[in-house]
């Protein structure tokens, strides 16, 4: 029993820290996709955020400035994507592919210039994002350890759960959210009602980049302590998968991200025993996703105008 509670605590801890970056990126993806712009550049934007976050935190010594700058770096690439897709009517998938090459390409080059290596210098404990409720629980007892594992978590994790609620509120309870969703469903109708579709979409893609950048910064400022070229390997795509899984709703994406996070957590715990191959365990999240989709979720309705460049008619 004690072992089980300990393991459960560790799994939940790992679930939360692995789900956090995915969740930031997934919320970003929601903004972009729901407003009608396909953004597969999330991966590249996360990489930009991951690098910028650690570098700024390293040079300023302040994790929060680093975290925000990570978001801004993502937003910069978001603006680039928006410029191409929203303003210039580019093919959204192609532009996203370009972002996925440009993001890592540029930041790894910068890493070479700044540190003469593709890796950044590891952050020390004060430069990482701090943990909340750390040392509040008595870790000598079983339940104390359990609560310590689950609740003494990074501030960024608490923030992202608040962000899910905020995004849900914005999407479904505000005028802005209604307009945003309308832009992704029927932009022509929006324009006739006087909504600036181009402006809305541009803003949403920039927000999307900002959130993806925050997600990237979470990876290098919580899970690890430095940026390496393999810091962001596929998390962006997993976040997109979580959004499709969650039927383009923030609350659905939350479930998708927690599922992926949980499987990563399981990997951490089971990885210690050599009973099952590590590679097979690593496969679990992806197999489970397919199974869940087949059995429970099924068809995911894409916003009607998603992927179609909108051109204002005069």
């Amino acid at each position: 029993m004690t072992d089980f509670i300990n393991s459960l605590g560790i799994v939940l801890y790992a679930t939360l820290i692995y789900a956090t970056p995915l969740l930031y990126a997934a919320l970003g993806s929601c903004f972009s996709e729901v407003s009608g712009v396909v953004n597969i550049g999330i991966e590249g934007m996360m990489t930009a955020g991951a690098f910028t976050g650690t570098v700024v935190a390293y040079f300023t010594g302040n994790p929060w400035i680093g975290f925000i700058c990570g978001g801004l770096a993502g937003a910069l690439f978001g603006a680039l994507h928006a410029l191409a897709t929203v303003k210039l009517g580019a093919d959204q998938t192609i532009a996203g592919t370009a972002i996925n090459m440009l993001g890592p390409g540029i930041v790894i080059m910068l890493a070479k210039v700044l540190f003469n290596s593709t890796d950044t210098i590891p952050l020390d404990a004060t430069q990482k994002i701090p943990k909340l409720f750390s040392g509040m629980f008595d870790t000598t007892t079983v339940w104390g350890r359990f609560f310590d594992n689950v609740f003494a978590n990074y501030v960024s994790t608490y923030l992202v759960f608040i962000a899910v609620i905020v995004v849900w509120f914005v999407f479904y309870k505000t005028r802005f959210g209604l307009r945003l969703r309308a832009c992704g469903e029927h932009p022509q109708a929006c324009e006739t009602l006087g909504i600036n579709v181009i402006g809305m979409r541009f803003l949403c893609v920039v927000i999307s980049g900002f959130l993806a950048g925050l997600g990237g910064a979470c990876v290098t400022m919580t899970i690890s302590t430095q940026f390496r070229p393999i810091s962001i390997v596929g998390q962006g795509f997993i976040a997109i998968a979580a959004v499709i899984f969650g039927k383009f709703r923030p609350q659905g994406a939350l479930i998708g991200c927690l599922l992926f996070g949980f499987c990563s957590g399981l990997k951490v715990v089971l990885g210690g025993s050599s009973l099952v191959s590590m590679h097979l365990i690593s496969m679990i999240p992806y197999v489970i996703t397919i199974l869940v989709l087949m059995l429970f979720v099924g068809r995911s309705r894409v916003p009607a105008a998603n992927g179609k460049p909108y051109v204002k008619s005069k």
Partner: protein
Amino acid sequence: MKEKKSFLTFISENTFIHILLSILLGFLVGAVFLAIMGLSVGAAYGRLINSVTSLKGFTYVVVYGVPYIVAGLSVAFSFKTGVFNIGAEGQFVVGAMGAVVTSLLLPSLPKFLLVPLCFLAAMAVGAFWGILVALLKTKRGINEVLSMIMFNWIAFYLSNYIAGLPGIKNEGSAEATKNIAENASLLFSKDYIKSAGVAPTFNWGFIIAILITLLVWMIIEKTTLGYELKAVGANKYAAEYGGINVNRSIMTALGISGAMAGLAGALLVMGMGQRISIFSSQEGYGFAGIVVALIGCSNPFGVFVAGLFYGALIYGGSKLNLVGAPTQLINVIVGTVVFFISISTIFRYVRYLKRDPAKAKSGKEGAKA
């Protein structure tokens, strides 16, 4: 004003010119980055050109280019048929593993049997990987992009798992499979390689790449199957109304695309690679296939040239650190090229507006913006 208009029309009518312009801009942006880093643009680009223009360098480019060409053809084929095969990565990986396992199971077969058998095995598993996604889409309505991303990762871990199995894993300390059977290798004989002074990994793969390029062109342009697939790609509702079975078309398209991605994997391991390593992250040949298909404008011959171009950049890029320039410069250059290719639609759009006299006015404004 008149001159500007004709220039735009010129670019929009010439995809080739537009792509050349994009490539030029890519190198320009690369040069800007080099200059910012305080490196010599001439030295870096000189190194890039020098390393691919010698006989040895050029054969290296061909060797590097072959898997990119075939992976690019796989993605281009899917583009033509209206599916975005982001799953080429996974199909490539299982295909490569299919070829390796086949060669290790039947090492004593003669070359003329084993090589085609390995190709077939790779194409079969690649096609299977593609058809799985198509089945999930047509039977259960699961978004294909989502399941492809999942299957890419499943393929990646499956490959790592199989590579570590006893009987397949290398006996030495290397975290990789055994080398493929000699009779499955596409490499030219050692004597020839030595006497001709070509790259040590020079192999028959490029002939396969040429054949596949022609085959894809034939399927797309000269067969009923190609016509049907293109019709579905252009407008699936119209195609369905015209009596084409859309679900079956999607299945066929992903099957063929997957088979080609699998073959690309086989060409890599039977040529340049000779074995598969246990990787910590995806290698990205399938994703590179997307880029190659885009640069090649989804035209089979365009993809062939684009694959060689990409191979040249990757091989040349690996020599860049000799002059102190980071290898990642290549990603920046290619990323910029793809970025500018993506906005080609704006040129086409401007032209479309100009054809329609009622919208001509806004077209001009669009051109200014």
